[in-house]
Structures are given as structure tokens and as C-alpha cells.
């Protein structure tokens, strides 16, 4: 059952998207002029490149996100067997979370979560 469902899903996805594009190409009204290709029609054209350099502050948030992402990855197997283990599993994961909570407190204290 499993793999056939994937194939059906894949084919349905391709057919739906391709079909919608093809149909809209087929029946839509076609016109082309220079104004149509402007980013804002009847507005001002943008000055300079659209790429902007990001602030370094984003990077710290990305790293913090990654660390808690890894933490959640370790919580998945814990959550699956939590009912079998009972209170011991709860205490074990509590230690795990408290140690990481210290890290969060440190980040908070040092102003790493503050936007500058």
C-alpha cells in the first residue's frame, strides 16, 4: 500500500500543477508590452539592486534556533516511550531540559535575545 500511495500522490501532484499551468496558458488572454514587465505597474521603478545585506543579529538567532532544533530532535524518541517509562523518564528529561534552560537563561541575561 505505502509505496503505491506515494506514486499516486506524485502523479496527481504533477498532473494537477502541469494541468493548471497548461489550462491557464491555453485559455488566458495574451498581451505583452514593456509596462507589463515592470515590478510595480504604474508605480515607480526601484532604484539600485534589490539584494540587501542582512544584519549580523539574524545569525545569532539562527544558531540559537539550530541548537533548540537539535534538542527537539532528541525529545522525539523520549516522547514516543514516555508512557512506558513513567516518572523516571520525566525526571531524566527534566535534567536534560534544565541544563538547556540554563543556556537560555544565559542568552537572556547576556542580551542575546534583544534586538539591536
Amino acid at each position, binding site marked *: 500500500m505505502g509505496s503505491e500511495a506515494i*506514486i499516486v500522490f506524485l502523479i496527481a501532484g504533477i498532473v494537477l500543477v502541469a494541468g493548471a499551468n497548461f489550462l491557464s496558458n491555453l485559455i488566458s488572454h495574451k498581451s505583452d508590452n514593456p509596462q507589463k514587465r515592470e515590478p510595480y505597474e504604474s508605480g515607480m521603478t526601484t532604484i539600485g539592486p534589490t539584494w540587501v545585506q542582512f544584519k549580523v543579529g539574524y545569525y545569532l538567532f539562527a*544558531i540559537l534556533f*539550530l541548537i533548540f532544533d537539535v534538542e527537539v*530532535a532528541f525529545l522525539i*524518541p523520549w*516522547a514516543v516511550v514516555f508512557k512506558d517509562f513513567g516518572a523516571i523518564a520525566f525526571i531524566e528529561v527534566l535534567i536534560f531540559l534544565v541544563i*538547556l534552560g540554563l543556556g537560555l537563561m544565559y542568552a537572556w541575561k547576556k542580551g542575546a535575545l534583544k534586538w539591536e
Partner: protein
Amino acid sequence: MERIIFYSIALIMVVFAIASVTSRKMLRSVIYLLFVLCGVAGIYFLIDYNFLAAIQLTVYAGGIIVLIIFSVLLVHHIEMQLEIAKLSRQILTAVACMVGLGIFLTTIYSHEFNVVENSRTTTTADIGSKLLSYEAGGFILPFEVISVLLLAAMIGAIIIAKGAKLTGKNDKAL
């Protein structure tokens, strides 16, 4: 059926891997890499490694790619296209890649793969019970040490990212 899925995923991965290294715009390379990582997760799902596939999706496709995107966006001249390398360098790279591919292929083809009867895959529940077990063969100590490792990584990241500002503040306080 599994063969069809494997080859389609492999095709997607190879196409996007080639696109990732040949694209001359950095951000596009990163997005192609994202598709390759999703393909790896698909392979893991195919061989019933559900937990590994979930890790691949959350940590690699979710976390690492975000990190790479931010580091690309922090670069000054992002709209700049990467230069095409010199011909001598291209040839050297091609030779190095071919040698690597040759070593891989000889290792794979010289190894005899035996089919295991009634192979049983490790489920997420197995991993969880091993991880939380404090009896012999359990991994509860490594599990708790991981949190210390993550804590060290977090503090290190904060110190490196805000180093100058932190010491400045401390000097004032002292």
C-alpha cells in the same frame, strides 16, 4: 515499486546536486542543496529509518539550511556571480573527483552484500527506550551529556557573536 521510487529520488538528488555546484548564484546553490537534503530524507524513509529521516528534515533541511542562507545573506556582494575557475584548475578538480569516484566504486563493487533474512528496522521507540534506559546497555548518561554539549555550543555561539560587546559591558560593571 520501491525501485522506481529509489531511482526517481536518486535522479532528483543527482540533478539538484549538479545544479548546486554549477549554479553561479550563491542563494540558488543553497536552495538546490535544500532539495538534495530532502532527497536524502526520502531515501531514509524508503529504507524505514523514520527517526533518521525526521532528524534529516528538521536539523539539516530545517536548521542547517537556514544557517547557510543567513550566512549567504550576510555577504556583501550577494548579487555578484561567482567567477568561472581557470581551465587548469577545472581539470585538476575533475581528476580529483574521478579518483574519489573510482575509490568509492571499487569499494562498493568489491564488497559482497549479503541479504539478511527478516531484517528488522530500528523504530523510534527502540531508540527512545535505549536512550532513557539507565540499566546496562542504556544511553542515559550520553543523553544527559548531549544537553551539556548543546549548552556549551550555545554559550560559545553567544560569546563569539557578541564578544566585543560583552567584554565592554563587563568592564563597565567592574
